[in-house]
């Protein structure tokens, strides 16, 4: 839990009842030019550089932990190549924040 | 001023004693007199101290750290004590048991004659000084090993000077010779048992040793025109530079055999108190600090100028002599290495 200062250590007792949007991230690897904006700006630190090369010989991003994504769309906004976007999962799956 | 009484030439017989017997001389003197002599204070420091037996004396020394003036003009001296708030009860000055100062260097002996001018002059007589001076017989010990910063020669003193003393002593290697200079000195010398008459060759040997010692006085300074020169350069920019490194401590004045400035303070508790005379130094800012907060000698420049002017000009104007005996203590001990001789040379070289 982000910014959960050491003061609160317990998983909140209502955590299983809280709904947060769950994002699914889509990446068009071949469009990516490896600028890393999406990785840098993601507020939840969801993304990282992958080891693989795309056609242009860049390292496209990959998802570290998709459960962390809250579908804020910031990666879409900052991507200069329209190579990444997120969609909200509608299956209402519950997960711990 | 004291004048040295002459003694008859018939009394002027040199005596001698073997070096290993010198303690018997001291032990004899100690019975009748308070004897002060050079005492080893620590590895480097030899100073005048009261000797209780002959073995305490340390006659193999170059010079004492502190000058002999403190035996006549102590650093702190109670002038009088008082009780009650009405009137001071001053106790009478009584001479103590007669004193002998054994082994003073000729330079320090000379300084006493300069201090006599101040404390025992025609206008002003200092009873505290005079009572001690009159009560004291001086045995000077000729200086066979002048130190690197000695320049007594330039002051007309020299390591074998027989002036300003009662008994002149010299180390001949295996023996000491004694030469009475004043009747008082001769009187004491005659009473000391175990002294033999000096050998006929001793006078010649003394002469040789004298020139040998004089040749070892390495430093010289020309003082001939200094008083007149100083009179002309009071406002010279020279003073702006010379004082810069001076810390303003009192070493040079406290260790100077001729510096004699003092302060008088009262110490009081309830209605009991005493008035004390203590050494002071023109190097200190407080020396001339006035109650208003104004200080006529406000900086180190004025203070250093005062020190040199006093020694080499004002004293000459007042008493006809330079207030320096060339002992070199101020040079040896200056914490920042100020060199009086160099300063005088610089003054001599000023246009």
């Amino acid at each position: 839990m982000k910014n959960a200062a050491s003061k609160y250590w317990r998983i909140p007792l209502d955590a299983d009842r809280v709904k947060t949007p769950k994002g699914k991230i889509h990446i068009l690897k071949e469009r990516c030019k490896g600028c890393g904006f999406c990785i840098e700006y993601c507020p939840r630190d969801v993304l990282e550089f992958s080891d693989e090369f795309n056609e242009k010989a860049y390292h496209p991003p990959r998802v570290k932990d998709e459960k962390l994504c809250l579908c804020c769309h910031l990666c879409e906004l900052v991507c200069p190549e329209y190579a990444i976007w997120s969609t909200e999962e509608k299956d209402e799956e519950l997960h711990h924040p | 001023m004291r004048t040295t009484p002459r003694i008859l030439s018939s009394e002027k017989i040199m005596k001698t004693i073997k070096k290993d017997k010198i303690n018997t001389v001291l032990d004899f003197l100690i019975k009748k007199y308070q004897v002060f002599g050079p005492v080893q204070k620590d590895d480097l420091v030899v100073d005048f101290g009261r000797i209780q037996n002959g073995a305490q004396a340390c006659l193999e020394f170059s010079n004492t750290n502190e000058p002999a003036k403190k035996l006549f003009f102590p650093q702190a001296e109670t002038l009088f004590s008082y009780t009650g708030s009405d009137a001071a009860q001053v106790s009478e000055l009584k001479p103590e048991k007669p004193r002998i100062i054994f082994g003073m260097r000729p330079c320090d002996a000379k300084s006493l004659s300069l201090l006599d001018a101040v404390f025992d002059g025609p206008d002003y007589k200092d009873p505290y000084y005079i009572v001690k001076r009159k009560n004291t017989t001086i045995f000077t010990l000729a200086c066979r090993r002048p130190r690197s910063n000695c320049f007594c020669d330039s002051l007309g003193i020299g390591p074998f000077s027989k002036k300003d003393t009662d008994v002149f002593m010299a180390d001949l290697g295996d023996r000491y010779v004694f030469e009475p200079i004043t009747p008082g000195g001769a009187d004491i010398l005659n009473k000391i048992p175990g002294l033999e008459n000096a050998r006929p060759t001793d006078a010649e040997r003394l002469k040789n040793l004298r020139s040998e010692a004089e040749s070892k006085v390495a430093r010289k300074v020309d003082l001939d025109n200094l008083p007149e020169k100083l009179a002309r350069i009071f406002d010279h920019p020279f003073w702006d530079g010379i004082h810069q490194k001076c810390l303003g401590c009192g070493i040079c004045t406290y260790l100077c055999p001729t510096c004699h400035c003092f302060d008088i303070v009262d110490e009081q508790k309830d209605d009991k108190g005493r008035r004390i005379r203590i050494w002071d130094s023109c190097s200190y800012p407080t020396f001339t600090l006035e109650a208003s907060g104004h200080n006529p000698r406000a900086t180190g420049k004025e203070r250093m100028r005062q020190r040199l002017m006093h020694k080499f000009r004002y004293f000459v104007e007042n008493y006809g002599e330079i207030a320096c005996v060339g002992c070199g203590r101020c040079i040896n001990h200056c914490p920042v290495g100020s060199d009086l001789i160099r300063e005088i040379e610089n003054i001599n070289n000023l246009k």
Partner: protein
Amino acid sequence: MAPRIGVYVCHCGGNISEVVDIQKVMESLEGPVDVVQIKDHEHICSEVGQKLILNDIKENKLDRVVIAACSPQFQGITFMKTMEHAGLSPYVLEMANIREQCSWPHYDYPQEATKKAIDLTKMSLAKARLDIPLEKKVIPIGKRVLIIGGGIAGIQAALDLGDAGFQVYLVEKDPSIGGKMAQLSKTFPTEDCAACILSPKMADVPNNPNIKLMTSTEVKDISGYIGNYQVTVTRKALYVDPDKCTCCDKCVEACPVTVPNEYDEGLTTRKAIYLPSPIAVPHSYILDDKTCLGLFPLACSKCKEVCEPNAIDYDVYPTEEKFTVDTIIVATGFDIYDARQKRVYGLGKYENVFNALEMERMLAYAGEGKPLKDIGNRIAFIQCVGSRDEQVEHEYCSRVCCMYATKLACLLNRERPGKEIYIFYTDLRAYGKGFEEYYKRAQSEGIKYIRGRVAEILEDPKTKKLTLRAEDTLSRKIIESEFNTVVLSVGLIPNEGTRHVAGLLGLSRSQDGFLKEAHLKFRPVDTLIEGVFLAGTVQGPKDIPDSVAQAGAASSRAISLMNKGVYEAEPITAQIDESICIGCGMCADVCAYKAIEITVVDAHTGKKTAVVNEFLCKGCGTCAATCRSGAADVIGVSDHQISKMIEVM
């Protein structure tokens, strides 16, 4: 001209004269010409005695008075007033304490006591000779007061002062006032609902025209002195306009970020945009920019998208405000002891171990019929966690734990019958009004009090049940028993805000870290800084009624100061001899009252010296003791006077 001193030696009705030979003391003082008269009296503090002094001052033209009697702490003010009546400065009076410091402690040694009395009186005489007829300094004082902390103490003080017509600035660092009390379920011993009795008071605050409420605000700096405190506060950006917000909760639904809810001690979650509590005052949503996905650059903006009244504005920034007040009340409250430091109790490790404040929240939810978690049937309370514990350097008693544990136990017991509740205590303290009765009632309701410290708690990893091992020190039996839930009755500790404010104002702290009052008994809400008062738990652990009472006391102390319109400052202050001062700044460093500044006094020479603000200075003399060159001294208690006093001993 020599002073004319009158000396009075008091018998104190035998308190002194039975031990000290008064006649000898008087004889010992004879002699000096400036001692015009020496008299003794049975009770010099009596009206007759005071009249005697008054008369002598007039008839004998006394200009100094020395009274050898009791402690100046005791009767000093009385005699200072006598001096004023006689038209003399009260600062040419010296008292020699020959009672508390002489006849009482040396009762069995009358001869020595007499000698000491002579010394003490002679010392006062020596000091009196050098006394200067000082005059009090007068500062105008207005009617503005800063209250730091919006807990129950701060609220009460604000309301008292606001109602009395004073301009109040109430500064609270959190988004809502209410403090710790707002988190409580019910209050002991009456079991009133905390929210029910607190929320009307909270609501009164913004409605009071004399109170300027500043929440989400921190005090950044305070300078100046009584009548002229310059306060600088930092107001956080809230991003939600409270006037537009309709509290429709749509932003909360939209916000993707969940974080622990401070109001529920992290037992529940909140969103990055949230209502601080159901009873929050001001009642408005705020956006927590520390947990928001991001405002720079704007990452999400979902809340703004759904906000129909358009109350959300991301383009706001923290602001600084400055204002001037005349007095200050510090009510920064407390924190609870972090029981995770006591590892044997397993808080932070075992999910069924709670601290008492967590249990308050659990009960609040249970009371509303929305239980957060099954508490189980066997519950143990462990008392004195972080209190009366030398190991954690909290030797003091937190005063509220016995009763809140009793309250929680009663509430739990009543919540669902059939529970077994144990309270493991060291000593039970039921000292307050109605406390003992409440304790008796709890016992009669079946709460079991076991005298003994719990050695350790172990958790069954599967069932999560807790095995607790303790010694019953009354029956000398080892107890080992299984519980569903363990509640740690944590103590009260000073909080970070208190440390911060103490630093800003230069307030001293007691050994326990709470702020120190000027006098434990006679000035319990004053501090040593003139015009600064303490209210509530900032001064030490206390319960709600005590906090409220102290808040009332603090506000009435502030009112009595401010109502006069002028403040008379003690003239005994430090002074600097500029001719000696070399501006090293050591005095300024050690000054607890920040009364000294190093200033260039001569632009030409660049000479720097220390300059004393005589209104801030308390005359404590620390600067004088520190000054190497003796430039700092205290008027009225000068180095010269003290050395003379030592001399005559």
